[in-house]
């Protein structure tokens, strides 16, 4: 109707575009992320650490709770890192193999971080998007609840929870998960308010798309960029919180361990010439945190190229 020789032009267009599949914003973002060296290297290192925590146990000579009676009490002389004795990272003060314990600590810390962040992201995104989209009085009430929860000193509550209900990983999850979605929901709400008045949301409403579908199909996918960035920054935050709690001696329960607990033990025995007890867990901790922050940075640049 508009195009006269439609058949001809169509054929040409088909030749020009190989498959007709478009480049989505996600593909663009992935390309930009790959061009960021620091972020790509960080992603690689982080994946290696994760892989190591799964493959590492197959090479371990000692399990994480087994005590090497030779090294017990004389870690400074006998328990140093060596390949012969099978203690690749040395032993701790009780003669337990640090290699296995670091692997165990890595698994626990990363799990706490990733699971905690996932819970925070899901709850925070849905809460924030609902609050922002519905607006008005609902929004006011929902956000005041967040304000009230935020004003409660978080560490204090977490410590109280762990003291009252006993130390357990489950309790730690609940404690951290309960509080870390608050920031997320605020960020998401702000972004939703911004999106809500865009014309494509209005177009969907005029068509008669239900509120729930508008939130899940139109608002949440457009929030994912900022959510992904914030989540990668939330993971190290949660790992830090867990480490701090463990450092205080309230986190995971022996013989399980985590980075924070290992660092605490290492720091306690540093004056007995057993510096490896501090350095190995600390190295894993620091490198992983750096990686998370670099990846978060890279993601932000990749998903939001205008604001660089």
């Amino acid at each position, binding site marked *: *109707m508009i195009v006269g020789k439609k058949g001809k032009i169509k054929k040409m267009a088909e030749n020009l575009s190989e498959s007709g599949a478009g480049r989505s*914003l996600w593909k663009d973002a992935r390309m930009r992320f790959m061009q960021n060296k620091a972020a790509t290297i960080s992603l690689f290192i982080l994946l290696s650490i994760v892989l190591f925590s799964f493959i590492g146990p197959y090479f371990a000579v000692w399990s994480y709770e087994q005590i090497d009676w030779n090294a017990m009490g004389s870690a400074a002389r006998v328990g140093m890192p060596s390949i012969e004795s099978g203690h690749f990272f040395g032993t701790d003060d009780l003669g337990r193999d640090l290699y296995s314990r670091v692997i165990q600590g890595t698994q626990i810390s990363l799990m706490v971080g990733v699971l905690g962040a996932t819970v925070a992201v899901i709850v925070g995104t849905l809460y924030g998007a609902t609050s922002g989209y519905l607006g008005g009085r609902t929004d006011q009430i929902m956000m005041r609840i967040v304000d009230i929860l935020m004003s409660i000193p978080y560490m204090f509550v977490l410590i109280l929870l762990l003291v009252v209900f006993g130390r357990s990983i489950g309790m730690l999850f609940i404690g951290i998960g309960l509080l870390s979605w608050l920031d997320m929901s605020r960020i998401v709400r702000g972004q939703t308010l911004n999106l809500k008045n865009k014309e*494509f949301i209005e177009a*969907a409403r*005029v*068509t*008669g*798309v239900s509120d729930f579908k508008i939130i899940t199909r139109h608002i949440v996918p457009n929030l994912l960029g900022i959510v992904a960035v914030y989540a990668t920054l939330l993971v190290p935050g949660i790992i830090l919180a867990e480490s701090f709690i463990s450092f205080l001696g309230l986190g995971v329960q022996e013989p399980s361990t985590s980075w924070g607990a290992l660092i605490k033990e290492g720091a306690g025995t540093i004056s007995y010439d057993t510096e490896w007890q501090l350095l190995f867990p600390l190295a894993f901790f620091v490198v992983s945190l750096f990686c998370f922050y670099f990846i978060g940075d890279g993601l932000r640049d990749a998903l939001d190229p205008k604001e660089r």
Partner: protein
Amino acid sequence: MSNQEILEVKNLKVNFDVRSEGDMPWTKAKKLKAVNDVSFSLKAGETLGVVGESGCGKSTLARAIVKMVPAESGEVVWLGNDLLGMSSAEIRPYRKQIQMIFQDPLASLNPRMNIGEIIAEPLRTHYPKTPESDVQARVSDVMNKVGLLDNLMNRYPHEFSGGQCQRIGIARALILKPKLIICDEPVSALDVSIQAQVVNLLMDLQEEMDLALIFIAHDLSVVKHISTKIMVLYLGNMVELANSEDIYKAPSHPYTQALISAVPIPDPSVEKNKDLILIEGELPSPINPPSGCVFRTRCHKAQEVCANEKPDFKGLSKDHSVACHFHD
């Protein structure tokens, strides 16, 4: 079919509450009369052009008709049913008969969805059980109709130009075969050459599908080209409503006269000798509109009666009405 009134708007009023900074929560909000007492009717296949300067309530009128903003009072009668009294569940079946096209072509498309999904969304919303192959066929059919190649279905909005994006928006509005499309400044964001293409496309489709259009714009020459009737709004009030030809040949309201004299003529010698009626002063605040006739503060014919009495909206002939005490 063609002579039946499908949409009738009666005395529609839309007010917004305005609170100024520092107001206490219990102070009464001021009322901003965005749309004040607007009535018109529309038949199938007709186009109503709505013109007026920015902030005169054109877009609010459009949004009130589809219940995107709540109306204060009045009626919107669609095929004999009052839409304003309906709950959001009751209005759903009517949503597929009234569609909308927006001003910013790119912003009206979700950047995370490919255009096949965007165009199919109304179909999937109202007929969720349509088999996937039918959806694909309908989408490519409607894409061809608006002059897009259907092999672009998997592409994303940012890969298209403004004119193409507007065609995608039109395709989305057409897929449910609506009876009325409300176009909210559909061409204001486009180049002049693309404007003509899009307007001609709309007119072709209108003829083909017996569509009624409400066409909002601030460019009078575009409106003249497409409309059968034209409504002139000023500060939320109707000042003149007439057939497209009458309003250009014999504008009666001083405001309409000024608007029409401001349309540039593409001939320098004619343009130079043209009588320009200049409107002086600023648009008054809609929170605190002038008493009597809203236009009197800027009108060259204004007299005492204009400040005291609001002019009735009276018919000069069958299809020509005006709100002025001293109309020509």
